């Protein structure tokens, strides 16, 4: 394992120190428990939007703390959901009297820890669970689908709603609408190595890829031959399109995401193919996001996320945002 770290035990804490140094105008990092909080929190009268999850997905979530997006992020150990204390601390530091909305990715660990915190919190707290990964078959008897790329779009849109003054119920309802309209799928060309594990999470031959992966370095649903970029993009986009389903005439946001180690030249190449496929189907790409926003450490690979837009979502997407990883209008 070769990594730019000092010690697997302190990697999250050390990285948070670097974030603090780089972005002290936007956020304040608290340690013990670890919470990344918007610099001007609590914002009086504003619903606090709080998320969190395992570390190793940067810039998610800490990179989205700031005006117009998250009030706080709770970073767990690498690929490990945070503990209830962190979430409670985040709520206490950011509740400006209008309550808090917890954005939870659908993993057993995240759901249980956020749920525990929600039960213990003294503020008014609601939570929404995002589960946009179409690679996982949904069923009443399973853990259900994972929360992946759609989380970034959800945090931006709901963050903008809270910023303009929407109340807790409105934020919660909007979040549900976004969750109902967003679907994702990802693939990996290489595995990643969790610092405390020291070895890659799986081994792939030089002509193989994992399709239907999540964001925790876990293997996907299927191991297949790595084909061309066009084949890869189709393999991700088709199931996404079929699932909602998306149809001709839909207006969408297309989010082409790198898993962390994919060069931007390849990501743009894939994005171009996806745009073409959508145009061929009569789906209008109204907004797009291309880059590394929800990652699995150094994994090479990508995910595609489609969000069906309505006018309000577009307005909220375009609203000013000022965070380490997303910034416009400010």
């Amino acid at each position, binding site marked *: 394992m070769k990594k730019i770290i000092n010690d697997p035990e302190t990697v999250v804490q050390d990285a948070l120190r670097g974030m603090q140094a780089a972005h002290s105008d936007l956020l304040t990092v608290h340690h013990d*428990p670890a919470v990344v909080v918007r610099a001007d929190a609590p914002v009086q009268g504003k619903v606090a939007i709080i998320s969190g999850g*395992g570390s190793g997905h940067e810039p998610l979530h800490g990179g989205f703390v700031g005006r117009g997006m998250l009030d706080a992020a709770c970073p*767990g*150990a*690498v*690929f*490990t*959901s*945070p*503990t*209830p*204390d962190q979430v409670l601390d985040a709520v206490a530091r950011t509740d400006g009297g209008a309550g808090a909305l917890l954005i939870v990715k659908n*993993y*057993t*660990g995240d759901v*249980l*820890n956020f*749920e*525990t915190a929600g039960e213990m919190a003294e503020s008014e707290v609601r939570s929404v669970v995002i589960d946009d990964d179409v*690679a*996982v*078959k949904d*069923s009443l*008897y*399973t*853990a259900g689908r*994972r929360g992946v790329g759609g989380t970034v779009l959800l945090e931006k849109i709901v963050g903008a709603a809270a910023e303009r003054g929407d109340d807790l119920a409105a934020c919660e309802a909007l979040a549900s609408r976004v969750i109902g309209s967003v679907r994702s799928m990802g693939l990996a060309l290489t595995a990643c190595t*969790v610092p*405390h*594990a020291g*070895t890659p*999470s*799986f081994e792939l031959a030089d002509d193989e890829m994992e399709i239907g992966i*999540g964001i*925790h*370095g*876990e*293997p996907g*649903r299927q191991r297949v031959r790595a084909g061309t970029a066009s084949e890869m993009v189709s393999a991700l986009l088709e199931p996404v399109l079929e699932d909602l389903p998306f149809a001709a005439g839909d207006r969408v946001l297309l989010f082409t995401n790198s898993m962390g180690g994919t060069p931007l030249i390849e990501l743009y190449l894939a994005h171009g193919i996806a745009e073409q496929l959508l145009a061929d189907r009569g789906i209008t790409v109204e907004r797009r996001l291309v880059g590394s926003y929800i990652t699995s450490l150094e994994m090479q690979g990508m995910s595609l996320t489609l969000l069906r837009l309505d006018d309000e979502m577009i307005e909220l997407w375009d609203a000013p945002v000022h965070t380490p990883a997303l910034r416009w209008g400010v």
Partner: protein
Amino acid sequence: MGCTAADVVAALRAAAEVVKEHRDELVRLDQAIGDGDHGENLRRGFTAVLSRLDTEEPAAPGKVLKLVATTLISTVGGAAGPLYGTAFLRASAAVGDLEELDRDAVARALQAALDGVVARGKAVVGDKTMVDALTPAVAAAASVDGSVAAVLSAAADAAAEGAESTVPMVARKGRASYLGERSAGHLDPGARSTSLLLRAFADAAAKA
């Protein structure tokens, strides 16, 4: 002769040692069908338990179990944190203020722990989780006569078998469920850690 607070502390120190020894094994099991953190999560949690036990000396078994519960909840994270945390919390409640735990109290505590895990995680036997180890352990504990050590030993044996039974299963809960059919053929890390913890408790009880 029952189990005092000091005996419970000793059992937990032994368990922490076992977790440390098996950290890498649990990481590897979790890499195969999960995200590779289970061993590290438990190591972090039990290390925190040890340092709390170095400074605090809870007077009753139930208080020790409660300390373990809150420490695990606030340091482990992931699925295992709230699940093991709930298990110890319910076990603590089940034994109340007893000064010493007899075989009935231990069996009751195990049952409460299982109920807590199921209440939180909603898994049933066959889902390929720690429930597959804990369920037969609870049944064995209830059906065995004898000392606390004998009860825990029967529970540990049953848990080990229960853990083994997860190998062919297709996971329906936890991260392994994302793999679908590919989850079959692997031992569930949480079932393995449950069986390791019970074995550590049983061995400690035998020595007490």
